[in-house]
């Protein structure tokens, strides 16, 4: 079996060989930066050297045909150097300011919007959805596309009070830190999984399956003479953890699956400490290909924040200042029993004072 030529455990290529000379020369010695226009900034070194960055949105799901086009643009304008950001944008790194406009035009002609810097909506970080994930309650790329087809002017302009970070996850696994976003769009399951009792004993380890349930709702059971499990419906919170360890416990459900919306989270420590996103809308229907209810809800939240927040105030900081009752009032959202936490530590979220605005 052994292969003498087999190379393993080499780790990633060293980043240094991908750094343009201007970065090597000014590494750790940048003096300041300025945002020149939407999607374009300059970093100035202590040496006086300038590095220009043009940022464009990608759909994250990218064809190699597109990556080759980006490589061609990097050759044409940036001596071959480029990078990607933590929010799935591509950044071209230039030393010649005069090339910015031509590069921007080429990107726009190819369909990749330039923006996402400063007080704007940056790219939506998102998950795989129906393109590739087993536990997706909805599609990811499709919902993101529908939302940004509507909100893209806030990517291409810097017309917001502060930064707005939207994240999308297609199930409660929340790949991608949607739990700390200004607006989090989250696929949810709402039905107890169905069980394939014929298949289950063949493909799943029952003890692992039972212990996977955070609420202890899965019990061993014999069904038609076969060893299987049963689920106590009232204790199921539709997390889908059981489905991840056992494909015979089917969480996906065309009727029950939908989308929830959460607000006011952040990861940055600027001003306010990092915060989790909190529930704004418990359930919206899954309505491909345009998800109009979701797009409308997200757009309304952006609008109400834009109109009411002070400069630099993130969604969560604004809500904290005005208070949640006021938020539900001016965002015109119904407050329901689902908004009150009933999981671990729920009591920490109860109001325990008379500080109430009448």
């Amino acid at each position, binding site marked *: 079996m052994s292969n003498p030529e087999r190379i*393993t455990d080499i780790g990633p290529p060293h980043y240094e060989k991908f750094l343009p000379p201007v970065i090597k020369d000014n*590494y750790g010695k940048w003096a300041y930066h300025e945002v020149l226009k939407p999607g374009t900034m300059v970093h100035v070194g202590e040496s006086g050297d300038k590095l220009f960055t043009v940022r464009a949105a990608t759909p994250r799901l*990218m064809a190699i045909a597109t990556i080759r086009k980006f*490589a061609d643009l990097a050759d044409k304008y940036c001596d071959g150097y480029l990078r990607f950001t933590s929010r799935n944008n591509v950044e071209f790194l230039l030393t010649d300011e005069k090339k910015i406009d031509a590069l921007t035009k080429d990107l726009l002609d190819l369909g990749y919007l330039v923006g996402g810097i400063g007080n704007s909506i940056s790219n939506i970080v998102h998950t795989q959805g129906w393109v590739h994930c087993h536990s997706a309650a909805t599609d990811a790329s499709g919902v993101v596309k529908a939302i940004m087809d509507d909100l893209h002017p806030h990517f291409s302009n810097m017309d917001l009070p502060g930064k707005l970070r939207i994240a999308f996850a297609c199930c409660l696994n*929340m790949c991608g830190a949607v739990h700390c976003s200004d607006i989090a769009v989250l696929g949810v399951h709402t039905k107890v999984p169905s069980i394939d009792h014929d298949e289950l004993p063949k493909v799943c380890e029952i003890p692992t399956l039972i212990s996977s349930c955070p609420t202890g709702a899965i019990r061993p059971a014999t069904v038609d003479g076969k060893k299987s499990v049963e689920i106590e419906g009232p204790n199921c919170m539709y997390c889908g953890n059981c489905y991840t360890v056992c494909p015979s416990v089917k969480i996906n459900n065309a009727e029950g699956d939908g989308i929830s919306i959460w607000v006011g989270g952040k990861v940055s420590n600027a001003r306010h400490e990092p915060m989790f996103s909190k529930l704004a809308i418990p359930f919206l229907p899954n309505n491909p290909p345009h998800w109009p209810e979701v797009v409308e809800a997200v757009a309304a939240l952006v609008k109400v924040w834009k109109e009411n927040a002070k400069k630099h105030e993130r969604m969560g900081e604004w809500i904290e200042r005005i208070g949640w009752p006021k938020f539900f009032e001016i965002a015109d959202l119904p407050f329901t029993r689902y908004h009150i936490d009933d999981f671990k530590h729920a009591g920490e979220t109860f109001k325990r004072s008379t500080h109430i605005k009448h």
Partner: protein
Amino acid sequence: MSDKKVATPLLDKIEGGAWPSFIKEIKAEAHRPMVQDLLGVLERSYEERIGHWKHGGLVGVMGYGGGVIGRYCDLADEFPEVGEFHTIRINQPSGWFYNSEALRTLCDIWDEHGSGLTNMHGSTGDIVFLGCRTSELEPVFDKLTKAGFDLGGSGSAMRTPSCCVGPARCEWACYDTLDACNDITQSFQDELHRPMFPYKYKFKFSGCSNDCVASIARSDCAVIGTWKDEIQIDQKEMAVAAKNGTDIQAEICDLCPSGCMNWDGKKLDINDAECVKCMHCINVLPKALKPGKERGATILVGGKAPIIGGALLCAVLVPFLEMKKGYDDLKELTEAIWDLWGEHGKNRERVGEFIQRIGLSNFLEQIGLEPVPDMISHPRTNPYIFFEDELEDDDE
């Protein structure tokens, strides 16, 4: 088969529009039968409002326990080309820097062996190749490693670390995030490729508390740059900013969370002993203000998304650590955590949940750290203290 073209009326409806189109991306590779079938499955999901992928199965490359995620289609009879449609994670270079040559090399490999579809990048930071047959995994791996790339992590392993752009292009980086990320990744290759932990363990490296890689929310160990001494002030640039319309009082002083700033219309005074290094003032005035010179990082642990026991933000473990090259202190701390959690953690229990279960005080004692008030938002309010005498009596 290769001539068939799947009808996609629903997907076609969302193909246009201003935002970059994932449907166009998929169609750009649709000369491959595999991608035709992917379009067919996706169109079906849009019709039926349900996914058609199955998780699991032990697939991978020889000698590795991770890096490949098994993915199968439950409509394989109808769409056989995506019956096996595995994900390959490839460890990205620090900071997601590339040159055109490296990107073309990756494209050539994926052109020959897979769907031609990627994620740039996955949620954890890897380059993701979407849609590989089992038979093609070894050839892809062979070509990747010959080109200098290696797989990323999956399963109960150290996951692929990631970092912000750091000193490569940011004046706020308080330590070398790219070097630290690369060093940790290279130092723990075995832990990355061969899952042996109770569950996943993620590292993320941010150069300042703006935390551009969301380390505090998305990692088990967040290394966030900070400083100990005074914010560097250029009073001339302060005056320029004020003259150019920045309302220093309203936008800087009034928004400072520790109220440590005073602006008399000409000069900014900062009481640095009160500063919590939040970065707000520096963010607003990058020409006038800079982090101090005595730089390092705060080490925090235990962040995670909700599954299984609820979401957690990272908690402070080391308020200030010098980030000297080699990172011996961070590595020593990491190995102490892995030893303890590796031995006592339950299956699928993240380190943050483990700390909650055994108690932070016990955790600190076991890994050899002294408790300090920077680790808590406030001391306990309940009187049910497990005094150590009691414990020692029990032990004897």
